[in-house]
């Protein structure tokens, strides 16, 4: 196992021995014990779920809907600059809540235990360019099962970015800081296009270029949202039509940049580790937990910040227990951290500014080939 910081040193000494075992110097008994302790945390929460949790998610749902309604209503007067700013802010906040604390978490099945068909992973659809069905497949299955396994977890750089020196350098990585700016601005389209293209490439006997077919399937999902944001509501705004259009566009971009920031800080700061398929072959439940721990990073902040990040600021806890209700991650976090302390495991966390800086610094460093980086003595 290598971390981004000691990677360079290992590179210089022996770059064939890049990966150690997930378990480091823990004994098998210790790994099992960690697994049992984490299982016990899950069981505690599961047996305690009830009215308060239901009230939490229903309150969030109401808040989202009121924010959305008031944002859209305010933008009817978006020709007036104060209304444009207020409406854009309300709408962006609504979209962030809807994608993160609601969509992401509900589609993880965090609220399935309530058996309410209106708040259930099998029925929820979200305001995003990737459909719920496709997202659940690529996110819940590939990303959460194969977290940070290079070649398996598509979220490791989304096929475009080099986020660890374990990935081969390509020429286009030279421009990856600029690429990442574009990905941030249009995050929802970037992700869905990437997933759709991979799916279409698999269909070797289908006619036409895979990228064209991917665009077509993407259009099926984004059409209602594009019509809503860029045709219907601008038209309803009458004289404010052009400014409502720019406001809706801006709200979407704000949402994209925010989700991109939170997600990148969850997996790409320094000290987060990556794995190969060989390393994890036949891993036990305890080892799976350890990989989730080492492959994720938290972001510190206020309760409001946690809600606005869909509690993905508790990325470590989310990866250990992807389907436990997000409102419980805050109370689990100290228990997880204590286990890490006791067994000498890393628990990567930091404020948003620091984590975000590390993400962009690594991207910049890794845009260079490793031999150039070594000559310039730039760590990633």
């Amino acid at each position, binding site marked *: 196992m290598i971390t981004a910081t000691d990677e360079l040193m290992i590179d210089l000494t022996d770059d064939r021995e890049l990966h150690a075992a997930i378990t480091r110097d823990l004994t098998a008994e210790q790994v099992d014990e960690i697994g049992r302790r984490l299982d016990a945390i899950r069981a505690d929460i599961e047996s305690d779920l009830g*009215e308060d949790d*239901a009230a939490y998610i229903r309150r969030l749902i109401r808040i989202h809907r009121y924010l959305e309604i008031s944002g859209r209503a305010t933008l009817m007067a978006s020709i007036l600059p104060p209304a444009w700013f207020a409406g854009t802010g309300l709408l962006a906040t609504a979209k962030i809540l809807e994608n993160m604390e609601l969509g992401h978490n509900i589609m993880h*099945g965090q609220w399935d235990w*309530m058996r309410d068909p*209106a708040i259930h992973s099998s029925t929820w659809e979200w305001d995003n360019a990737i459909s719920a069905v496709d997202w659940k497949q690529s996110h819940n299955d590939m990303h959460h099962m194969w977290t940070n396994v290079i070649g398996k977890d598509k979220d490791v750089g989304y096929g475009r970015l080099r986020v660890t020196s374990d990935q081969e350098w390509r020429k286009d990585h030279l421009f990856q800081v600029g690429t990442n700016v574009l990905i941030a601005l249009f995050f929802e389209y970037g992700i869905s296009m990437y997933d759709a293209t991979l799916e279409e490439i698999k269909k070797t006997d289908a006619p036409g270029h895979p990228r064209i077919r991917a665009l077509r399937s993407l259009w099926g999902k984004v059409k*209602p*949202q594009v019509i809503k944001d860029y045709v219907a509501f601008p038209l309803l705004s009458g004289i404010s039509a052009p400014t409502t259009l720019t406001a809706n566009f801006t709200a979407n971009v704000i949402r994209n940049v925010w989700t991109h920031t939170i997600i990148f800080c969850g997996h790409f700061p320094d000290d987060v580790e990556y794995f190969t398929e060989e390393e994890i072959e036949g891993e036990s439940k305890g080892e799976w937990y350890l990989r989730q721990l080492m492959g994720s990073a938290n972001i510190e902040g206020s309760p409001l910040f946690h809600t606005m990040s869909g509690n993905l600021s508790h990325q470590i806890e989310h990866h250990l227990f992807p389907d436990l209700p997000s409102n419980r991650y805050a109370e689990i976090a100290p228990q997880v951290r204590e286990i890490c302390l006791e067994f000498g495991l890393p628990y990567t966390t930091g404020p948003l500014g620091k984590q975000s800086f590390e993400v962009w610094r690594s991207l910049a460093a890794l845009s260079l080939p490793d031999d150039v980086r070594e000559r310039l003595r730039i760590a990633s």
Partner: protein
Amino acid sequence: MTRILSLAQRLTSPLLPDDYLTLIDPLLAQNSLRGRIVSIESHTTRSSTIVIHTARPVPPFQAGQHIGVGVDLNAVRHWRTFSLSGAAPLRPTQTLHVTVKATGSGGVSDHLVNHAKPGDILFLEPPTGEFTLTEGGAESLLMIAGGSGITPLLSMIRTLTVTDTPPYVHLIYSATTRDDMVALAELRDYANTMPWFKLTRWESTVQGRIDQSALAQIEPDWKDAVAYVCGPAAMLTAVDGWWREARLSDQLKIEQFQTQLVVVDGEGGTATFSASSRTSDAPANEPLLTVGEAAGVLMPSGCRIGICHTCVVPLKSGKVRDLRTGRVHGEPDEPIQTCINAAACDVELDV
């Protein structure tokens, strides 16, 4: 209305107009049926009649049919099926009556009897059921009710009181004690004022279970009547035997309210819930309904005892075992009742 809603959906996509309408009033939901409790009348300490005002009219139901009632208990939605006990309406109606007996198990029935109050919102499944009065039917009816099995029969009797030419009806109402009999005053009133209606009470703690000779004494012409019987499983099994023996099974209609599941030895298997992408161990004696629920699948459910068919989902592959009879069955795409079927091997369900 549908037109307006489909236009509105353009503006609410990917949410539904329902998601906003229910902010104003939960009863405005268009995609599901809900109702508000108007009043609750307690009959005994253990049973009550709940009067429900539905958010929109339901088609006229037939006497003897039942509805699904869903409530959130400690934030988890639970469903049970209850017979409608009011007279069948001629036109679509917004008023439904269910008569509920608390079971002491802490489920939906207990909640409705002990905790529900006027104003509460209930989730509903519209009326269905085959246990109904047949049009232009027999000249004489024999009804046998065991305990809370009175409810569908009560609906039939109330319906007959407002028809022009009711048949002769003899109701044998069996319950543990007289205090456990709901609507007794009303039934006695019918017996006193309506020449076509006869009531016989049977207290099983005093008189024991009704047997065949008792039946022949109470109603010597039982073989000439069309019989409607609703009650506990043991009673239904006995009654079914008497009619079978008399080769009169086609004159007997039965509604089963409690199911004795036959626990059978077997292997069980793995259940795959394909639409939900979940898999789970499915023991040979556990209904696939609870296996799915435990795995977090949004399983449709209703009575949980094999009556209402709300829980039916298509079987994609594998075989299932009917826990009531032990029969193993299952063809690809066969709709199966998950509440009374367990996995007989590895199974895949389309849910």
